């Protein structure tokens, strides 16, 4: 492993020195640790594959920090060629007309053909405009899925639930077997945004915000969503669900330590979980409500996309297009998918990994892709909401209060809707 990294480093160093004549492009991202290393490996593969362009990836810290640095750099004319922006920040960069060149335009201009249908369904719309044109190039994509503690289910003598109704039926048995039946890691992403996608319910007006920023309003007081959280609260009170705060790991830990039976995590979690979990586990789709008409649709993608920043020379833009083309090639997608646990975003890459027998060896890796490939409903394509990181903060705050018995579920959602709509109205003014 260490040897591998050293070799990669050396190769990177050589490829960097041997490409003086090449056009240099930069890529700012928000990935650290192993995922950051994989980005370097991808860049190194790109630099080795051709000689006209030299790509340098730079880690800018977290997703939020990468976006903030990208914005500051853009304002002073020092922007990178490629900026990685996470799902919740998508509206910020896409609504800043002129900050980015839509990925699809960039690729067609460079002389490539762009096939939207090459991408799996759940990935296709999220970073696109309302006409379906790709603005961002989906990069690291994940889906919220349910991890299953096989040992716990066997002990309780139950099957993994597909719907929340089924969960309700087995929860008492899991509790009796000595387990916390359910934990999760991000109520905003898993039980709010993807509640809307999996149950095919409208999240916000103006076509979930895609059509316009003006007068977009949240629809979080939807009775179904309120019901979901009333259930969660009731389950928490009865010991069927446990909430350990907004921190991801505090919640995941209970599953790792074989204390919880089901955990809603990310499709990208399995790599780490394989190392830390004290028991055997499997995975399945994020449950939905059987009682909701039309539920069971695909989820939104989480993760981040790559954006080609405007204000760069044609040669550099051509290099960015080359890189995007390279990045979506089946081999690189498969490599990235297997090295990180993020889902493959093209159908060809998925087929390639499947033909290789990858999913027979690691069935968990397929769950996220399959969930994203489920038929998409009217409301499972994505959302585009301004100041969304702050709206998420409001949700996190109110959800914390629900489980601390400080507010009722109904009041919490009234607050989220009111404050969220105020933020959306403010955002509409920034574009003015």
């Amino acid at each position: 492993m260490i040897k591998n990294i050293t070799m990669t480093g050396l190769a990177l160093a050589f490829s960097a020195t041997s490409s003086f004549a090449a056009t240099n492009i930069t890529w700012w991202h928000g990935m650290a640790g192993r995922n950051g290393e994989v980005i370097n490996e991808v860049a190194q593969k790109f630099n080795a594959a051709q000689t006209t362009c030299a790509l340098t990836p730079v880690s800018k810290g977290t997703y939020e920090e990468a976006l903030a640095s990208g914005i500051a750099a853009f304002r002073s004319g020092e922007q990178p060629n490629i900026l990685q922006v996470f799902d919740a920040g998508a509206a910020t960069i896409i609504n800043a007309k002129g900050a980015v060149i839509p990925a699809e335009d960039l690729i067609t201009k460079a002389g490539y053909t762009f096939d939207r249908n090459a991408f799996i369904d759940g990935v296709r719309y999220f970073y696109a405009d309302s006409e379906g044109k790709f603005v961002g190039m989906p990069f690291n994509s994940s889906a919220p899925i349910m991890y299953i503690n096989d040992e716990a289910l066997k002990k309780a003598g139950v099957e993994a639930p597909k719907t929340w109704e089924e969960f309700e039926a087995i929860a008492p048995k899991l509790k009796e077997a000595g387990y916390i039946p359910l934990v999760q890691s991000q109520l905003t992403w898993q039980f709010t945004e993807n509640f809307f996608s999996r149950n095919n319910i409208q999240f916000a007006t103006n076509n979930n915000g895609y059509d316009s920023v003006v007068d977009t309003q949240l629809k979080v007081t939807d009775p179904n969503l309120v019901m979901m959280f009333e259930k969660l609260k009731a389950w928490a009170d009865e010991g069927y669900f446990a909430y350990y705060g907004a921190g991801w790991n505090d919640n995941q830990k209970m599953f790792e330590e074989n204390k919880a039976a089901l955990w809603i995590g990310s499709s990208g979690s399995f790599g780490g979980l394989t190392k830390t979990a004290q028991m055997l586990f499997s995975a399945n789709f994020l449950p939905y409500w059987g009682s909701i008409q039309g539920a069971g649709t695909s989820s939104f993608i989480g993760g981040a996309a790559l954006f080609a920043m405007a204000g760069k020379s044609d040669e550099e833009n051509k290099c960015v297009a080359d890189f995007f083309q390279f990045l979506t090639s089946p081999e690189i997608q498969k490599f990235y998918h297997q090295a990180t646990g993020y889902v493959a975003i093209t159908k060809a890459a998925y087929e390639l990994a499947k033909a290789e027998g990858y999913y027979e060896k690691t069935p968990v890796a397929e769950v996220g892709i399959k969930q994203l490939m489920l038929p998409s409903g009217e409301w499972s394509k994505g959302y585009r909401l301004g100041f969304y990181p702050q709206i998420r903060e409001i949700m996190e705050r109110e959800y914390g209060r629900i489980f601390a018995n400080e507010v009722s579920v109904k009041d919490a959602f009234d607050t989220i809707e009111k404050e969220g709509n105020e933020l959306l109205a403010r955002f509409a003014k920034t574009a003015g």
Partner: protein
Amino acid sequence: MTHAPSLSPTSPALPTAGGFFRRFRSTPSEPDFAKRVQFSSPYLPYLFLAPQMAIIFIFFYWPSVQAIQSSFYLEDPFGFGSTFVGMSNYTDVLKSTEYLGIARFTAVFTALVTFFSLAIGLLLAVKADGIIRGNATYKTLLIWVYAIAPPVAGLMGMMMFDQHIGPLVKFVGLFGWDMKVGLNYTDTAAAMIIVSVWKQIPYNFIFFLSGLQGIPVSVREAALMDCRSGFRRFWTVILPLLAPTAFFLLIINTTYALFDTFGIIDVMVKDKAANNPITLVYKVYMDGFRGNDLGGSSAQSVILMIIVFVLTIFQFRFIERRVHYT
């Protein structure tokens, strides 16, 4: 008040305590002729002042003016569009019950952190001052905590107070306190205050100790003859003589609690504030850097600037009056 030093948190590092007090001592009515320097050219002093002025201008005045300006706009973060909104960034913030809640917490947090870090620092300094044997070791042990960077202190605090494995959580559990840091507002607030106080004690300790050592032995001996009660001696003789140090520390600790605890808070809420308590400066960061709401966050930082300004004036006007510089 002609020579009030600038105490705003963004200004360059504060002068050392010595320089600080000297400035108070030399009042205009008794000019210090020995220190007056004659310059050959009338422009030379300005030249010497220029670097300092440049730093203050670039790093303090200019950003402040920018903040005030952008607080009247709602701006697209990339700089493509902006709408002049007048005072509405301010009214939005001041009408928000959440913001007022954060302001209330900040006030309580600042008061408690300042009080406890001063009180404990003073207590330890008085005790250290009385020790004759092994006092170097004792002092070093107390001081070295100050070398810990705030995020590291936050990280240590986070581990000590971890929901699942934190030793302090297990310890208070013995007394029946089911502490849930990150989940329960009061518990998180308590943990934040404890870590912030712990981090600041050594700083106060150093200053109080040097202040105590600056009190002439003759004064102490005279006091000892007049009064046998150690506590009363401390209260009526030592403490008034320590007042200049205490006043300086009061201001430093207030700004510490308001601003420098940022790193501790950031690490302890693990990037997700949720329903946990946060301070005003953390809110500025959340809205500005994470939420990209430049106008709203500028308005908040202007409000914060005003608060610090008012607080500093208050402290110099009303508290400093009672302080006697010998």
